[in-house]
């Protein structure tokens, strides 16, 4: 590696990037099309293009300078790859964190409503934070559910949202048509989703890798399109509304003599229901996590991980790989179904639009970014991926910079896409990629990511 690149070369490189950016901006950014009186009218926006190119130039310049400094430093300190003797492998902070991390996360989650209420001075003002908590926990649960399929068994599922949809519609239909209560519907929804998992899983599990991903994507889309078009049952694009609200194990959250507040002698507050929903999803998510942690130490969990490592070796050891994959698929689907029925009871409304491919992509991104198989990683990734875009809503001050018409929310998905790319380049194996053994004679030692395989199916 060259010790230093000349400043001129760096400038030239950044210039090249700006030039490419210019090319990319033409004509999609440079000319805005608007519906005018006679067809589309063009509005040139060269100022914006210039600004974008300048921004790209600066970002690249800074990046190159940083890289330059790192390269210079690398020349001074020898890299561990060049070591002739083993380099002392002290667990670094990143390795120690997972042991404390999960309890810390759960602890924080347990007290979040209290903290939010204290910080914002009352339950009602804290609603935003509790709602956000519910949203994040829903994705944590979905991530933990999909983690069984992708992280442990190494099966790439891009249609996970289908099972979320099955769960949501199961609850919506069972409660509105048959009048069943949430607590009856919840296990039923999980069961249905699991059955769908088996039904869809059976034909597709022979496929590997990207093909499996695409087939599952196709199934996810088919289910969504059927939900849209089969209007007699599903209500079509309009969806199903006025789904019964959650009750406190049969006691409704309402003002009046037989409501939750009267029963517990509290003044009526609509926030009780929200807090209850928060703890409900927390409990569901924790069940998912505990079951997964337990399963990892059972033969089935070990078989999943072995399957991810080497399917052919598994078969030579007498493991029925089809059944093993199906159990992973079905269990993942079941947790997706639970999450789906929670979604329905929380919203009181379901429509096919909530179950599009983007959702599947987000959930998969959470699992991969978290580090496949890691419970804490998935939780952290869910906070980042779901909470991060939420921050954009609060960037009102940008209006001062870019003018009144600027809506940061518009850029939510754009930045989300960029972030997905950036995070893969930064950490392709996810935040926590070490694997903890499930059984040990002596001390359990984390296994480095270089040895852990990602699966081929």
């Amino acid at each position, binding site marked *: 590696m060259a010790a230093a690149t000349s400043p001129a070369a760096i400038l030239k490189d950044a210039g090249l990037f700006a030039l490419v950016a210019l090319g990319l901006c033409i004509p999609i950014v440079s000319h805005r099309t608007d519906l005018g009186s006679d067809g589309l009218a063009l509005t040139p926006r060269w100022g914006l293009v210039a600004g974008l190119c300048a921004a790209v130039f600066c970002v690249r310049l800074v990046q190159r300078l940083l890289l330059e400094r790192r390269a210079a430093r690398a020349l001074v300190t020898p890299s561990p790859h060049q070591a002739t003797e083993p380099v002392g492998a002290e667990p670094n902070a990143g390795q120690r964190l997972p042991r404390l991390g999960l309890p810390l996360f759960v602890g924080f989650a347990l007290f979040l409503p209290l903290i939010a209420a204290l910080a914002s001075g009352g339950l009602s003002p804290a609603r935003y934070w509790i709602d956000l908590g519910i949203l994040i926990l829903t994705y944590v649960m979905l991530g933990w559910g999909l983690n069984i399929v992708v992280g442990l068994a190494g099966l790439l599922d891009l249609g996970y949202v289908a099972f979320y949809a099955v769960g949501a519609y199961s609850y919506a239909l069972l409660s509105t048509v048959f009048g069943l209560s949430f607590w009856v519907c919840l296990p039923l929804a999980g069961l249905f989703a699991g059955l769908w998992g088996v039904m869809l899983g059976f034909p597709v599990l022979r496929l590997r890798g990207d093909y499996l991903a695409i087939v599952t994507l196709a199934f996810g889309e088919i289910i969504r399109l059927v939900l849209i078009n089969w209007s007699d049952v599903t209500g079509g694009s309009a969806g199903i509304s006025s789904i019964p609200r959650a009750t406190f194990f049969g006691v409704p959250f309402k003002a009046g003599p037989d409501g939750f507040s009267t029963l517990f002698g509290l003044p009526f507050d609509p926030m009780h229901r929200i807090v209850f929903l928060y703890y409900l999803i927390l409990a569901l998510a924790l069940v998912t996590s505990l079951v997964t942690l*337990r399963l990892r130490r059972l*033969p089935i969990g070990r078989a999943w991980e072995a399957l991810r490592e080497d399917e052919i070796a598994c078969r030579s050891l*007498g493991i029925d790989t089809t059944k093993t994959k199906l159990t992973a698929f079905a269990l993942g689907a079941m947790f997706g179904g639970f999450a789906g029925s929670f979604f329905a009871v929380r919203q009181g409304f379901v429509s096919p639009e909530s179950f599009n491919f983007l959702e599947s992509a987000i959930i998969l991104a959470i699992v991969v970014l978290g580090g496949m198989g890691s419970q804490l990683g998935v939780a952290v990734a869910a906070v980042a991926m779901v909470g991060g875009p939420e921050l954009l809503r609060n960037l009102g001050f940008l209006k001062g910079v870019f003018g009144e018409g600027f809506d940061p929310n518009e850029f939510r998905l754009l930045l989300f896409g960029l972030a997905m790319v950036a995070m893969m380049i930064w950490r392709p194996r996810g935040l926590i990629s070490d694997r903890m053994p499930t*059984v040990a004679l002596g001390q359990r030692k984390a296994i480095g990511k270089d040895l*852990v395989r990602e699966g081929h199916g």
Partner: protein
Amino acid sequence: MATRRPDDPHAVLTVDHLTMRFGGLTAVDDLSFQARRAEITALIGPNGAGKTTVFNCITGFYRPSEGMLTLRHADGAAHLLERLPNHAVNRRARVARTFQNIRLFSGMTVLENLMVAQHAPLMRASGYTLLGLLGLPGYRRAEAEAVAKASAWLERIDLLRRADDPAGDLPYGDQRRLEIARAMCTGPELLCLDEPAAGLNPRESADLARLLRHIRDEHATSVLLIEHDMAVVMEISDHVVVLDYGKKIADGPPRDIREDPKVIAAYLGVEDEEVAKVDAEVGLTIPVAEEARP
């Protein structure tokens, strides 16, 4: 050389008229042989002779185009291997195998590798996961037994102190031995080894020979092995089958095979007079370049 009949009660594996075609290529052509109980049978032949294909047929990875593969257990039960699904060849017929390019679960520890091999009994003990999920003591006992069995094997292959290290971190020779131990943890009647001595140094080869003899004598497991290292083959096998271009060209005790002119010609592709000279030079060891693992 006594001809064996198919109903030989000592045969653990009987291969009858096995033929395997891939498109137009006949990799194995009308092969018949037997592997006897509590013996080490070696399957040798030049590269491309079809040895691994035979293994893949026996262990259920390929479905043979023609022929019959019978595995007879010590209790007399017979299994037709070509009719069993892949995984059932191990679970029901109790045939275990290793692979030419080692297939360990490299991201799992040495101990975990051996636990995965005991999947079937552990699944039963965990009540197919349901009872295990509840943490009942029955499963915990079964797991402790499985760990004990694994430890015993680790002791035997001298890897006990590395039990908690990832399998992918082990040196090559240790990985080979671990793969054999993992196959043995499934409790097989027949153990099929695909080039177990490839890439081993002379000392490791000697260890391997000792291990295989131990397996034959102490565990009543018959061994079928593919091997290129003639020193190993001649030292440990009780019986040798030679393949060339998918056909059997010789079958008998190592002593006879060593002197069989057809075998020598197949291996060296030279006239008989030259064989003696080459023999002396190489000490009968035919080195075979192994392709490096990716």
